[in-house]
């Protein structure tokens, strides 16, 4: 019974053009489409403006250093502040270095001088790149002046440098060592794509079966039938996950971990929980298109709830708990931990427990609904 149901479900998926597209073509399409904007991974040469109100040798040195900085592109040098404002509003620059009048005089007189560095805070990545680059420019010029002064009082240049900055701060990125944006966001989205395409495909199938009063399984609703169908849908999730974690991560050259046994366990658990969740959801739908219609817009909130792009600890407590009701929450965190961080099974125990609990709950509720499903009028197998 179970294998009959398994095969009948597969036949139903393959013979429905809409479901076929969603379950097997959608993922492949998205796997090339979604990483596309991030293929260069990092921001290079942020356009900036220099507002030089000092017009001194020192301000010209600052401008030259800004022009030479590899992550900046100086598109305008002007003494007028309104010109910089205009460039900012028309998105032609993302950062501004303001050198106030009297800067050189202050420095030569031994007074503290200030240069202002501003970035457009509404574009986070560009803001960061502009601020870091311009701050480095000012820092380099400032350090040069200071080292000359210290050099006059200390025996060696090395010693002068050590005095200038007693604590050396060394930042070391781990796991996503090139700090690429695609490598950061696409692995999480991969799991989301597997989930959303499967759920939309399943609600389409269940809706169609209800609408057309047909069901791929003959006879009464047995446990074997439920299990067979569950395994059929879970196998689709498994295939899509393998495609993403095997082919796409390799093709895009994203970091991958080596815990194969752990990955296999989480894959099976995620696929089963997702299929059980999808069956429970699918049995609520009455028309073919309703699931697609209702579920396209859920992808964004579901992704952010996973806690990849925004810390879970900063979400309201209610959401911190409710988010576990979605298979993707444990899926995204668990697969990233295994694939990108190289975690052990123990280190993803929360995710494993979460998926197990969700699987049990969804199977229990799903089985209860399954037995109450209306009997089919037409049997596709005999049709």
């Amino acid at each position, binding site marked *: 019974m179970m294998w009959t149901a398994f095969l009948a479900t597969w036949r139903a998926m393959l013979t429905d053009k809409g479901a076929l597209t969603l379950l097997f073509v959608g993922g492949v399409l998205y796997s090339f489409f979604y990483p596309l904007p991030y293929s260069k991974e990092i921001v290079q040469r942020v356009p900036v403006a220099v507002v030089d109100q000092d017009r001194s040798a020192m301000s010209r040195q600052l401008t030259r250093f800004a022009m030479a900085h590899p992550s900046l592109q100086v598109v305008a040098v002007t003494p007028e502040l309104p010109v910089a404002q205009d460039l900012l*509003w028309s998105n032609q620059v993302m950062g501004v270095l303001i050198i106030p009048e009297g800067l050189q005089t202050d420095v030569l007189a031994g007074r*503290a001088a200030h240069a202002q*560095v501003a970035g457009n805070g*509404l574009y986070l990545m560009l803001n960061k790149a502009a601020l870091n680059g311009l701050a480095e420019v000012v820092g380099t010029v400032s350090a040069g002046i200071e080292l000359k002064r210290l050099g006059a009082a200390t025996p060696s240049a090395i010693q002068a440098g050590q005095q200038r900055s007693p604590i050396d701060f060394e930042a070391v990125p781990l796991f996503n060592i090139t700090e690429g944006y695609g490598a950061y966001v696409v692995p999480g989205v991969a799991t989301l794509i597997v989930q959303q395409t499967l759920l939309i495909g399943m609600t389409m199938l269940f809706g169609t079966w209800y609408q057309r009063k047909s069901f791929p399984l003959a006879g009464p609703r047995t446990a074997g039938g439920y299990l067979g169908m569950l395994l059929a849908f879970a196998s689709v999730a498994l295939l899509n996950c393998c495609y993403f974690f095997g082919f796409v991560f390799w093709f895009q050259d994203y970091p991958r971990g080596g815990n194969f046994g752990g990955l296999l366990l989480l894959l099976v658990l995620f696929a089963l929980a997702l299929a059980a969740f999808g069956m429970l959801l699918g049995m609520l739908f009455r028309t073919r298109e309703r699931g697609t219609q209702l579920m396209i817009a859920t992808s964004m909130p579901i992704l*952010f709830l996973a806690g990849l792009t925004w810390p879970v600890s900063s979400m309201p407590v209610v959401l911190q708990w409710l988010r576990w009701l979605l298979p993707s929450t444990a899926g995204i965190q668990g697969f990233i931990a295994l694939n990108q961080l190289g*975690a052990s099974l123990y280190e993803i125990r929360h995710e494993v427990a979460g998926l197990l609990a969700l699987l049990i709950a969804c199977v229990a509720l799903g089985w209860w609904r399954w037995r109450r499903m209306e009997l089919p009028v037409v049997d596709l197998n005999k049709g």
Partner: protein
Amino acid sequence: MIDTPQQQAPSVFRREWARLRADFWDMGMLSWIPVLLCGILWLIFSAGIARDLPIAVIDKDNSTLSRQLTRWLEASPGIQVHEQVQSNDQALQLLRERTVFGYLVIPDDFERQLLGGRQATVQWLYNAQFSSHAGALSRDVRTVTTTLSAGIEMTARAKQGMSTIQAAAQFEPVRTQLNSLYNENISYEAFLTLALMPSMLQIFIVIAVVTAIGRELRDGTVPQWLASAQGSWLRAVAAKLVFPLIAYTLLALLYLLFFSLVRDWAVAGSLVGLLLSMLLLVLAYCGLALLLIAATLSLRLSLSGAAFITAPAFAFAGQAFPLMAMPPLARAWAEALPLTHYLQLQTKYWLAGAPWSYGLQQMLILAAFAIGCGALGLLLLSRRANAPAAWGRT
């Protein structure tokens, strides 16, 4: 007496309204469902700034200075020292568990080196896979360390006989004042949530329009639909667009009112410009959706098309990942999305405080989308939709 067609058939607008009222979910898609999902998005990021992100510390020195560094880290609002551990292995395990997102290693000769006037190196290792967590933490950890470093340097100078003021001016001749314009605290509410609202809106607009027209095609009720519009395609399509247009313009106003009045993100630039941009966004997506259903003539296909175009649109729109860093193909796709142009308008007018003239180009582009796609969609639909061959496609 013979009834005129006007009296026989209900007006096309009343027909559409009756259909919507009879359909709980379609009505929900115009009202409470988008409000609910946008509400959840706002809730997720409602803290605005992530605070107390957990880190670990390996203090190999255990001296007065190293303990001071740890205390200062703990006092920083962005950082929570979750645990002091003994080894790299322990710290890495906490990282892989995602219990902490970075750890600081203080070397065993930390205090001795510093008191001897030499340099000591602290290492900050962080989980770069969780980029936004790590980004905020790295900034804060670096700030704390630099502050301590500056303090030590000042003390050393004071010992050499300089006055405090003299020492301060000496040790950094040109100071840098860093400003993030328009969003001083780097709030995610300003940078992300405000941009996510129209990104949700465009998904709902396209779905609502293709559903309204697509179901007539699916059910083969095009003749009745057209008859109720007295044979005018313009009127027939207008009846399909008017309810989404009203509903989503109101929703746009709702998020504008909520974020500007309740959440205090006042409109710093041209309010008229912002309002006009919102209207143009809704119109542009109505036009795009009309073209989509007219080109496919299938509800299912145009819903799949909607999923492909609108669901990943935010990734292409240049708000999170900049347009200038995209390869040409992605850039071209981004420019073909009305959302990309709208988000630039919203950013300028709402928080950057730009006068209306700075958005003229983008507004014209949005208007061109609305008119171009809308006219082409109307033409295609009027040529192709009233034929039995176009009906019943699933």
